[in-house]
């Protein structure tokens, strides 16, 4: 049985019925939210297992058995096309969203408007799942907007704080502008090539790479770099992620910037354009932005006093590593170095989703229990909240890249390949890590320092907040124990499928 459609159906139905379920009371709404996200996680796991075990693309046509028209060789319907990269991201999205929803059961207890909150968080998950499985450009835009609108609303969800509103306004206005750029790119591609299906566009662009195609790629990269929070357009990220409720920050930082930015960028660069334009140029553009992102993001993290803002800037820095890996994968297309860099980037996407989700959940726990996120006041937290501090310790060690944890493997792959590709890039990456270490050591000293008055009455958070943190810790440690096996079994096949543009096209056109 093909479970792929349920990946959309379940969260869609869950989101639309969330206001109804909240009529039955608070308990019913929470249970419904957890049930829907758990089901989504199950479906995503099944999809991932199917794709991984067969190493075949899953193609699903909406409303017909074949995407092709009668008697013609081009697709006329919207289709879904899931390769291993998409399935992997769908799994991560469903997992982190599940964790965030369990966490918010307790974290958001004191807020009003909770039925809207759960509706929006489910829609956010839906939008990301739609992006990773779609095979149609305009459909991609629609789901990008679903995701963006949900995240605009969620960033400003605490409408009684000025932070949320201001960050929401900035995020929303500039984000809509970036979305408009993406729509403009899609319009240009349609005007030149007359189709919107990604795989058929790949065929047409391969036959005739024109100026219009390049201009469209420029608009795509501009808009998607914004969505992924690269320097110099990272500023909305540093404003928006700290202002959102912590469970949302975990999703925004862990998932939205990767699915809405990095995934889309990778898909467009590899599967649509591929080698039909000068792939080295595209790669170097992304490398340069990646290097700037790496330095600026990690350096800004050092000087923050607000814990969540520090984590947000650290997210910018980690996005830099991912961009660096993808850029090297593009610039060294077809070589072993490129493969390794790309594997490192994909691995780091997964790792960073887990680590940053954990860190933001820790920040949320501190904020919930103590009521401040100012690092100067939080000294000596470890005595009163040992579990939370332990969770932070694991997350920080993983994000710095200490060997027994999962961050080490992905960062090592990126260092190694960048050193082989160009030593200068490796130097930049190491400098970025030095800043990152400085930033986290500072928080660590704060947590384990002399107890201050503020934290005297602090207590550990409740079970619903501890459980997601515990699960994420276990996931990080487990992934850290078998880094090379995961790399060989999952990441390298992912890279192989991602690079295999011919396979991506042939799965739809049928060898034509």
């Amino acid at each position, binding site marked *: 049985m093909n479970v792929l459609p349920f990946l959309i159906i379940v969260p869609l139905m869950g989101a639309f019925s969330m206001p109804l379920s909240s009529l039955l009371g608070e308990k019913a709404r929470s249970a419904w939210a957890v049930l829907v996200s758990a089901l989504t996680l199950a479906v995503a796991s099944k999809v991932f297992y199917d794709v991984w075990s067969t190493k075949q693309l899953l193609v699903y046509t909406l409303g017909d058995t074949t995407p092709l028209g009668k008697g013609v060789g081009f697709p006329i319907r919207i289709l879904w096309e899931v390769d291993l990269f998409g399935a992997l991201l769908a799994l991560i999205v469903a997992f982190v969203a599940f964790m965030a929803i369990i966490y918010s059961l307790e974290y958001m207890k004191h807020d009003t408007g909770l039925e*809207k909150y759960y509706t929006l968080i489910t829609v956010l998950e839906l939008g990301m799942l739609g992006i990773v499985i779609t095979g149609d450009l305009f459909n991609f835009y629609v789901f990008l907007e679903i995701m963006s609108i949900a995240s605009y609303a969620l960033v400003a969800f605490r*409408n009684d704080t000025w932070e949320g509103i201001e960050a929401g306004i900035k995020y929303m206005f500039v984000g809509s502008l970036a979305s408009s750029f993406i729509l403009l790119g899609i319009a240009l591609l349609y005007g030149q090539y007359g189709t919107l299906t990604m795989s058929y566009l790949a065929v047409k662009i391969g036959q005739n790479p024109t100026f219009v195609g390049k201009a469209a790629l420029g608009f795509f990269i501009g808009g998607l770099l914004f969505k992924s929070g690269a320097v110099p357009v990272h500023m909305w990220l540093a404003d928006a992620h700290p202002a959102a409720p912590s469970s949302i920050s975990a999703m925004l930082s862990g998932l939205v910037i990767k699915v809405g930015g990095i995934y889309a960028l990778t898909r467009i660069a590899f599967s649509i354009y591929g080698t039909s334009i000068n792939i080295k140029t595209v790669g170097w553009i992304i490398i340069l932005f990646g290097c700037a992102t790496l330095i600026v993001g990690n350096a800004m993290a050092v000087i923050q006093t607000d814990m969540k803002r520090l984590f947000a800037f650290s997210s910018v820095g980690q996005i830099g590593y991912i961009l660096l890996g993808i850029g090297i994968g593009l610039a060294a297309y077809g070589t072993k170095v490129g493969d390794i860099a790309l594997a490192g980037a994909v691995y780091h996407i997964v790792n960073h989703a887990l680590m940053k989700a954990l860190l933001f959940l820790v920040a949320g726990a501190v904020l919930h229990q103590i009521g401040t996120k100012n690092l100067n006041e939080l000294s000596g937290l470890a005595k009163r909240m040992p579990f939370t501090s332990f969770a932070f310790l694991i997350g920080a060690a993983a994000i710095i890249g200490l060997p027994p944890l999962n961050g080490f493997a992905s960062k090592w792959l990126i260092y190694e390949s960048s050193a082989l590709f160009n030593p200068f890039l490796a130097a930049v990456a190491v400098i970025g890590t030095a800043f990152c270490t400085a930033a986290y050591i500072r928080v660590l000293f704060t947590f384990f320092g002399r107890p201050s008055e503020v934290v005297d009455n602090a207590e550990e958070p409740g079970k619903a907040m501890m459980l997601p943190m515990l699960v994420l810790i276990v996931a990080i440690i487990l992934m850290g124990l078998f880094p090379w096996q995961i790399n060989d079994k999952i990441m390298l096949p992912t890279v192989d499928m991602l690079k295999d543009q011919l396979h991506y096209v042939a799965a739809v056109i049928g060898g034509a």
Partner: protein
Amino acid sequence: MKRTLGALSLLFILGVLLIVAHPNYGLKFGLGGKDWQAYRYTDQYYIEHGVEEVGGTNIVTDIVFDYRGYDTIGEATVLFTAIAGAVALLRPWRREEE
């Protein structure tokens, strides 16, 4: 300073767009005959087969509700999301209730 640079970039983008719109280098307007078949094959397919495959005489309706019906679901979801978001943003402040 940044604003000026931004304006210059805007002019540059506009220039690229104008090249893109020039019929000799990029997009063509009012295609006909062979060009139509070469560039708008999907539209032509819908015009020719839409009525028999879907049944609606208005081809745009056929596309919106059949060929690209999934987009329409997405559109409805966007509307739903925006309403939920706007209602969430305009709810009374927590402070006022206490």
